[in-house]
């Protein structure tokens, strides 16, 4: 039998990547950081992750039902006959990874529900949100319960000894943490942000699979390093500490809320990097990754409008000539 001849107009997409395959790849890429977080902070971290994911999924189903996008009865819910949860698992998982391990579980549940309901579904669901839902959830929890959100536990002790994060130690008491502890994750912090190596493995996997663009993380992390060096700080410490790797590889590369052009992504990364350094050095919070990405999310439509790709065949406009010829 001859091969079927497909006649179609461009674009001729030959990739088998769909929304679901990309989401599963992101979940796979997050496994090292998740496992690392559970190993470091104990079974408690696993509870937070499970609560966040299930709360996010439940909220999504309720919201979709209200929006009339899904016919789902209570009977379906009870028998777990559910449609594939596109993206909402990642929202829940990412939110859990940037929460402190000892956060009360009901707060984690409210944060995930808020993230999905207000940051995603209120804007029209998957693909329509302006801000990264997981980060909106974290910002909401940060504004609502600042004490619970800044109580950190020591890793590998499993009995809730509170300490400060490396960035907190650096900011308040001027104590530097060894690079090795920062890279392996043997420091206090959010569940998934401490181990730089685990996050790097996931990030490189996604870049190798071409699911994310290397330009965003590179420009983001590079800007933080260069700015920290120029301002007389330790650049390696500022790269490894805090949630920079988690934000750079998994949140600043979100398809929906970041620019679509290559140049735009570099602008996004540089802008977010500048905001991180400004918040860390001058701002009131020790860490600024969450707010930097949220702020740049707000700039994304503006960046996309100004960084348009060159149309093929059109003469490149020279900056000086075009203004003189007018």
């Amino acid at each position, binding site marked *: 039998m001859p091969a079927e001849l497909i006649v179609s107009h461009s674009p001729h997409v030959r990739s088998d990547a769909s929304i679901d395959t990309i989401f599963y790849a992101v979940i796979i890429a997050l496994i090292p950081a998740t496992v690392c977080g559970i190993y470091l902070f104990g079974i408690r971290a696993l509870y937070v992750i499970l609560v966040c994911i299930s709360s996010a999924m439940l909220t999504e189903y309720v919201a979709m039902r209200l929006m009339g996008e899904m016919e789902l009865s209570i009977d379906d819910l009870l028998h777990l006959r559910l449609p594939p949860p596109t993206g909402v698992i990642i929202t829940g998982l990412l939110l859990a990874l940037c929460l402190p391990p000892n956060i009360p579980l009901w707060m984690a549940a409210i944060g995930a529900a808020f993230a999905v309901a207000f940051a995603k579904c209120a804007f029209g669901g998957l693909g329509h949100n302006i801000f990264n839902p997981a980060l909106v959830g974290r910002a909401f929890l940060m*504004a609502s319960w600042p004490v619970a959100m800044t109580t950190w536990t020591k890793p590998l002790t499993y009995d809730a000894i509170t300490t400060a994060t490396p960035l907190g130690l650096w900011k308040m008491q001027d104590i530097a943490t060894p690079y090795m502890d920062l890279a392996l994750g043997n420091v206090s912090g959010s569940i998934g942000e401490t181990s730089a190596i685990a996050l790097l493995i996931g990030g490189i996997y996604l870049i190798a699979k071409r699911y994310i663009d290397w330009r965003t993380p590179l420009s983001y992390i590079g800007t933080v390093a260069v700015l920290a060096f120029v301002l007389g700080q330790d650049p390696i410490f500022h790269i490894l500490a805090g949630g920079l790797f988690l934000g750079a590889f998994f949140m600043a590369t979100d398809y929906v809320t970041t620019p679509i052009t290559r140049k735009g992504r570099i602008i996004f990364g540089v802008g977010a990097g500048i905001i991180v350094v400004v918040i860390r050095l001058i701002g009131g919070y020790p860490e600024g990754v969450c707010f930097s990405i949220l702020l740049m999310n707000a700039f994304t439509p503006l960046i996309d409008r100004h960084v348009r790709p060159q149309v093929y065949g059109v003469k490149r406009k020279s900056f000086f000539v075009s203004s003189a010829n007018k």
Partner: protein
Amino acid sequence: MKLDELTKGVFKYNPIFYLVLGLCPLLAVSTRVDNALGMSLGVFFVLVSSNVIISLFRHWIPSQVRIPCFIVVIASFVTIVELFMHGYAPELYGRLGIYLPLIVVNCIILGRVEAFASKKPVFDSFLDAIGMSIGFTLGIVGIAVCREVLSTGKIAIFGYTLVPTFTQSPSVMMILPPGAFLTIGVIMALINYRSIRKEGR
């Protein structure tokens, strides 16, 4: 029918949720139920009095200078409220602060005076003012109830506890400006959801 002038401000043309007027005092003062009640009493008095006065004088006010005339009338009544509250409720006066004199530029009052009282007879204007004040009161107190419960875990009006403390860790955000925007948005969404479903039927 006359009664329509009264009820339209409460439901159909609610100043907060339908006309979206007077949001500045709404955002600032709806942190506590008693502040909201004090504010709505002030708005009630000023709105009813200025609507009646402007309606009485509507044939003598030249249209070129009508806004300054309205402001003079409204500002007089706001001054009365301010002095009265300073004398008899100094604590509430202190908490409402700058938002009490700012009733002068409250868009609900200026809007109703301009759009209604300057064209309609006295009794209609009186009913309209009462309806709009009730609508404003419902809106601001409703929002204040949500915000006070969520931000302090209890409701206390003038020292009397209506709802006892039910949580030890309430959400700090609800007392901040984002909490007000969020509450207004959610209530507005629910109202729109209901009206859309009503139309669809």
